[in-house]
Each structure stands twice: as C-alpha cells, then as structure tokens.
C-alpha cells in the first residue's frame, strides 16, 4: 500500500477497497514509527488529519470524490494551514498557529485531500540540504549519512520513505527539484504564476513557486490539476483557462527535439551523474526523440544573479518577523531597538541572517544599481537565452544537480559550495519557466540521480508527457529505499 501510486490509491478509494480513514491511519502509524529517524515532519496532528479523512470518506460515499479525495498528502511547513503550527522551519515561527489557509491548502481541502502533516524544510526555504532547519536535519532515506537536499527536504524524504503518498514543495532556486533528485523521486516547479503564492510564506517573491512532489510524473499531473488555478489574492497569479495536465501523458515522443545546453554538460558535473544522464538520453533517443546541442551563454551567471536577487527580496520579506505581533520575541530587552535586535538574533538561524545581510547590502544606497539593477538586467538576458534556445528544440534536459547527495555536515560550513547545488536549477526560477526532476539511476554510494527537464512557459503537460513516457519504459521511479 505504501508503495502504491497516488493513482492506484485513488482507484482503491473510489472502489471502496479501502477507506481514507484506514489509509490515513496507516500512514500516521508509519510516520509515528519512522519519523523519529527521518525527521521529515515538523508537525503531525492525528486529530486534524483523521477529521479530514472522515470527511473524505463521506465525499466518496456521496459520490462527490475527485482523484485526490482521501489521499494523504504531506504539506511543506511553508504553507499556512488553519489550526496547524506553521513554522517555516524557523524558531521565529515556532509558536505560530496559522489562523488561515494558504490558497494551495484551500485547493487541496476542496479536493478532499488529507493533510498528513507538515514537513521539515530549510529555515525560510533557505538552504539546499535541510540542515538550516530549526527542527534539525532530515535524513536521506537512501543513505542516512546523506542529506535529502533542500529546501523541501522533508517533503522529498516523506515521499521517498513512503511516509506520504505525495507532498507539496516550493521552489525558489531548485528547492523542489534538487531534493527530488537527491531522494530519487519526481517533482515539478510549474511556470511562475500558476500556483497561488497566497499563504505560502515568502522567501523571494519573484522566484517562489509551489509545486508537487511524488513518485511519478503521472501522479504529479493529478496533483497539478488541483494545485494550479487563479487566485485573486495573489497579484502575480495568472488567469488562464484550466487545463488537464494528464491529457498528453500517452503521446509518443517521436520527433521530440531535446536541447542539451553545452554549459550544463561542462566541468563541474561528476562522472556518475554524467553517465546516468547519458543513459537517460539514450533511452529518449530509443523513444524516438532526437537531441540537439544548444547554448545558454548566460546560464553560468544564474547563480550570482540569483544570490543577489533572492537575498534582496528576502531581506525585505523577512522584515515582518519582528516579534511585535506574532512569532518569537526575546524574553528581556531594554527598549524597542533592543527588542528587535534580540528577537531577530534569537529567532533566525545563521543562513537566514547571512541572506538578510547580503540582501540589505545589495539594496543599500550606492550599491543598488551595481547589484540589484545589474542582476535584473542579467535576468532578462538569461531569459532571452532560453527563448533563443526554444527556436531549436522543444524541451531542454540536463542534470538536476552536479553530484549525488552529499553527506550531512559536508557543506554546511561552506555556503558557496552549498549554493552551487542549485547551479542548474536557479535559471528556471529567474526566467519563471517550468522545470522538473525525475529519477534516472544511481551513482556514487548508490545515491539517486535526477534528470532535469526544463520546458517553455506553460508546457507542463508536455513535460509530464516526456517524463511519463520515460517512466513507462524504465523502472527507476519505482525503486524504493524502504
């Protein structure tokens, strides 16, 4: 049952082979058993989860069920959920019980899905290893010495370790795709603006995008069908006609032109990753696709551009955490400035502080033009590179990460090395393009490897088709660490 896909469980629930209450209880039990080892969840609330499960069973009995009704889904602790502790992985919000639902949570609730718990994450989504979480690191289910990736590390671990049928993540520079790759699961960051950011605690507003993480592309399609939709409460939400992301899953890939950016197949990628990616591309050629070399000349600038813009926005977004209205406030302080200073010094971890400092610096008088404005200009050039590339190909592929999962503690003392984990992924956030990762094998120490698939704007259905056809032909996505 724990290995079943979302689609299979959905069929079983609809056929009343199992009730959501039973399913939810089973998952809760498994979480209770295994979470102390993995630390994938920050909050589990059996009462709230089971209440949703019972409601789902009623929906099913009343014949009002959709594909997600009754399915236990783990929610990243960045999404505000009414009545749930919502910490964003930070001491700052370690006492914050949200009085409202995020747009994404509302959509899952309306679909009858069960929130099985809130997953661990890097503090305020700032990190690539889940080690910056106030609630401690998460283990990679494939190798407990390895990081699960981040920032959606708890989500990736929960799906890989079969603690939830699927999970939500958010992706600002690779936070869905990198942990998906490192944990051997599938994850997609949709086009910016498709998934509501309302109630999704902001890290970098112009880059943040929520998306699903699951065992297969087919499951991702079902999840996207629920997660995507206009939300008037988010001014950057796109008003588009609804589409069925599963509609193209069965299309053959004959004639598909896959672009391979030479900049992503250069030094920096380890041999085990290179060979797994090459094998995956061979498989695509067998499926009828052709590969063409393309160039994204400005792609190597994505990391420096990202590390100007993301901290700039973050430094401002995190100003609201001041200890005045909610969240952590220092116990003793001498005056207002001291209250701010102590509350924020105590409430934020070192990585968050580092990014607030970087962001404050690049927005400062006299530096703004040199950093922020220049980075925005480069961002436009990077987007232009992709637009040019799509003249020659339909979809772009490469490695999701340069190496397999590194060891816990290996990079936590070296921020630059840590930042380079997102070397292939951050461009999709800067351009707003959809991108996903699917498992394509194992490398060093038998740790998973992800294939990065970048699509043009709104090409999610095509990307899922491309991923699904590969998953029909291969078995990597069905491999389980447990």
């Amino acid at each position: 049952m724990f290995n079943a896909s979302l689609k299979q469980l959905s069929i079983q629930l609809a056929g009343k082979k199992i009730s959501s209450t039973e399913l939810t209880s089973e998952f809760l039990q498994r979480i209770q058993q295994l979470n102390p080892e993995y630390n994938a969840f920050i909050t589990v609330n059996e009462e709230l989860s089971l209440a949703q499960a019972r409601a789902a069973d009623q929906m099913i009995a009343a014949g009002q069920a959709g594909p997600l009704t009754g399915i236990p889904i783990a929610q990243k602790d960045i999404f505000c959920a009414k009545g749930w502790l919502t910490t964003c992985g930070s001491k700052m919000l370690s006492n914050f019980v949200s009085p409202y639902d995020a747009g994404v949570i509302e959509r899952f609730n309306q679909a009858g899905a069960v929130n099985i718990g809130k997953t661990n994450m890097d503090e305020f989504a700032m990190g690539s290893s889940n080690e910056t979480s106030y609630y401690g690191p998460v283990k990679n289910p494939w190798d407990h010495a390895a990081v699960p990736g981040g920032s959606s590390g708890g989500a990736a671990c929960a799906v890989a370790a079969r603690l939830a049928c699927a999970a939500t993540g958010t992706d600002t520079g690779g936070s869905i795709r990198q942990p998906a790759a490192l944990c051997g699961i599938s994850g997609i960051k949709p086009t910016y603006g498709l998934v509501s950011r309302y109630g999704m605690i902001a890290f970098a507003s112009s880059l943040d995008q929520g998306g699903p993480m699951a065992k297969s592309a087919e499951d991702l399609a079902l999840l996207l069908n629920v997660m995507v939709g206009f939300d008037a409460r988010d001014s950057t939400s796109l008003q588009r006609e609804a589409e069925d992301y599963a509609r193209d899953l069965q299309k053959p890939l004959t004639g598909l032109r896959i672009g391979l950016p030479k900049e992503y197949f250069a030094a920096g990628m380890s041999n085990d990753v290179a060979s797994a990616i090459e094998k995956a591309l061979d498989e695509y050629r067998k499926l009828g696709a052709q590969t063409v070399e393309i160039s994204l000349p400005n792609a190597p600038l994505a990391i420096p551009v990202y590390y100007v813009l993301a901290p700039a926005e973050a430094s401002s977004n995190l100003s609201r955490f001041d200890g005045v209205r909610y969240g952590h406030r220092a116990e003793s302080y001498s005056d207002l400035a001291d209250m701010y200073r102590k509350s924020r010094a105590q409430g934020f971890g070192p990585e968050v502080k580092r990014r607030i400092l970087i962001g404050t610096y690049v927005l400062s008088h006299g530096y703004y033009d040199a950093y922020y404005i220049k980075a925005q200009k480069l961002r436009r050039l990077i987007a232009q590179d992709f637009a040019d590339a799509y003249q020659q190909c339909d979809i772009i592929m490469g490695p999701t990460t340069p190496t397999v999962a590194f060891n816990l503690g290996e990079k936590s003392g070296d921020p630059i090395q840590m930042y380079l984990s997102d070397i292939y992924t951050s461009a999709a956030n800067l351009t707003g393009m959809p991108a996903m990762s699917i498992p394509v094998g194992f490398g060093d120490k038998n740790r998973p490897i992800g294939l990065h698939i970048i699509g043009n704007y709104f090409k999610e259905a095509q990307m899922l088709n491309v991923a699904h056809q590969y998953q029909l032909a291969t078995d990597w996505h069905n491999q389980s660490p447990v």
Partner: protein
Amino acid sequence: MQWEIVIGLEVHAQLSTHSKIFSGASTAYGAPPNTQASVIDLALPGVLPVLNKGAVERAIKFGLSVGAKINSPSIFARKNYFYPDLPKGYQISQYELPVVQGGTIAIQIDGAEKTIHLTRAHLEEDAGKSLHEDFHGMSGIDLNRAGTPLLEIVSEPDMRSSAEAVAYAKTLHALVRWIGICDGNMQEGSFRCDANVSVRPRGTEKLGTRCEIKNLNSFRFLEKAIDYEARRQIEILEDGGAIRQETRLYDANKDETRTMRTKEDANDYRYFPDPDLLPVEISASWIEQVKSALPELPQARRDRYVAEFGLSAYDAAVLTASRETADYFEAVVKQLPAQAKLCANWIMGDINGQLNKEGIDISACPVKPSQLAALLTRIGDGTISGKAAKTVFESLWNGELDKNVDAIIAAKGLKQISDDSAIEKIVDQVIAANAQQVADYRAGKEKAFNSLVGQIMKATQGKANPAQVNAILKKKLDS
C-alpha cells in the same frame, strides 16, 4: 540682510475608498482598536497585497485635475524600515514612476494669481498607530489605519511665505474635496501637511539648507510653524551659524519647532520595486473614462463666474472655495440669472456668516437654495425691503411657517408699501406736520431731508419702499 523664505509642501491626502489600498478591510474612522485589521493588514506570514483599483482611479482623477502626466506603467516600491506600527517592516509606496507626475495648482494671493508647480503625487499605504498611554510602561499598537490609501502630493519649492503655503494648502484641500477623492477632515488626519522650509538672501538663486516640519494638521499650525521655523533659521544665519538638515516637529502648545531626527540618523529605505505587485498599466481609455466623469473644476468655474455673471475675481474665488458652496450658488443664481451679485452677496454674507456662527457645513444649511432664491426674488420685485429680508431670512433659518417666504412676509406684515398714491398721502401728512424741517431743508440743510424720510418710514412702520419715498418726498419738496 533681506531674507527670502522658500517653502515646498508634502501633503498626505487620505483617499475616500471604502476599503484599504491592499486589503478588503474597511477604512472607516473611529472603530475599536484592531477591529479593522485583516490578516493582510496584520502582515501575517504568507499574505500578499492586492491593489485597490479605486485608489488608482482617485490618483488619476487628481492628476487630471492638476494637468499632470499620468505614468503608465506606474510602479509600487517597498520603503524598508522598522517600526512597530509598520506591520510588514516596509511601507508599500511609489518611488520611480508614481501615478501622477508634474502638474500645477493656481493660488490666489493678495488679489493676484500665482502658479505652484507639483513634482509628483504617489500612492502609498498609511501605517498604524502607536498608543503610548494607558499601557503602564508598554505601548499599544492599533492597526486599523494600517493600509489606508494615501496620495502624497509633493510640490516644488515654489512658495515664498507662510501665507502662500496656507493658500496652496487650502486650494489643494478644496480641490481634493471638490473632485471627491478625500474628505479633507483634518482632525481625523485625512489631510496632513509636511513643510520643507529654507531661507536664502533675497535675490540669490541657490536654495538654503532645508528643514522638514512634520505632521501639521491645521492651516493655522502650518502658518505658525513656517513663521517660527523661518525666524529660527534666519536668526541662526544672522548669528553666523549654519542650518543643519533635519526633520522637525511643531509643538503647537509652545509654538515652536524642535528636532525630531537629523540627516545623520536618517534611514536608508532601500527602495526597490515590490515583487508582489506588478507594474500598473493605466490605459488611455481608462484615463479618458476618468476624465469624462470629472466635475467642472474650481478654476474653470471661477473663470465662468467672472465671464458669465460679471462677478469679481474675489467673489468668484470665495464662491468656489468648496464645491458645495459653488453648487449652492449655482442653484440660487439659476433662478435669478440677472441678480448674480445679489445672490453672491447673500451667500458670502448672511449664509456663510450664519454657517460659521453655528459651525455647520453649507451642505447642511437649513435655508435651501430654492428658499433663498424665493427670498431674493421678493427683494428684486420690490415686495420687501433689504432690511425686511433679513427678518425673513431669520425666520427661514429657524424653520418658521414651513420656510415659505411669502407666508412669512404676510404673517409678519413685511410687505412694502409700493403704491405711489398711498405713499404720497403719508408724505403729505408728514410735510404738513413738520413745517420746521421742511423749511430747514429748503434753506439748504440736507440733513432735514433724512429726518423727514425717517418720519415717513416710522409712520408706515418701515414698510414704505424707501426708493419711492425718497423720490416722492424730493419731488414734493423741490416743487
């Protein structure tokens, strides 16, 4: 040395939208603390702003009223600083590309018109309120006001005296009320002024170092604060000192300004475009739509009153001080087009006087335009004298006899005697009874004439038409 005062004003006009600029919470004044603060106003984690179209529309309205350029796109930016009544740790404002750029306002000063140039007007959200009393060593925060839409209207340093600054502020105040974008209530903080004041030797070009005086919430304080501040700066300079650029507060009780913060401890606000709000495209058709819905503006009405009714520029300015006054005047004059000056005099005199005395607005005036017109008609057709009209007006004001002018005239017996033969009869009686005065008059004592008129008026209990009395008496005496 002769000094010249240079003043620029920043006015925060609270826009009259029902809901806040980035949330759906109410903007109504005076609710219990924090009852009008939504999750967005409280800046809970994850919430996002959505721009209130009505606020943008009001800004456009203002821009069109002052002949400004409307920027499209217009961009919202974050102004970052920490304060407990600023929930997000930044204020959403505009930096580059405000909705309104440029424009002018004409003010009347010493009987002449002067043009004040505007730099810009931008939209922004108000902060909440810190309450320092009643909390025993702690402060309270009321976020009802947080997110209230403001239009910050920034002038060029075009004013040269506190009188000009006040005239500008009053004209602006009238304008924002006129076009219906702000209720102008200064006690409730709907219209607040900051004044930038500097001085320079008369005849020189270079601007002196300026000080900004914050939060002047009455025209009187504006005037007094500028006068005090200019005196202070001149004294320092005449003593050989230098002005320090700073922000100052005006203390109305002591009638002085004092340092609030110096340039050195000024914040670096780290403005950058708000990534939660997209650039606002203001289409030509939207601007056209707003333009077509604009009322006739004060300046246009002033010009029309002079041209159409032959009023003086002064009268026209007084009548257009508020849209309600101007509308009142128009409603009256519509019924007495030939008597515009009479209408103007009554509104500027009796009506305004009584309104001021009782502290009520013309929109609540107990004498309606139709009633005043009825009264003025009876003066015009000679039914009553100007003096009797004052009595009728008082009765109208007090709501007597259903405010029916003719009924009041009849009931009070105020109708003039305008019948020549009736007046002649009385004139003859008075001449007969006052031989001495008649003789005096004929001997060249003009005063005796007035005495005779007085006798006649007394005999008619003041009801005789004075013009007729004068004419008949003169005719009889001179014949």
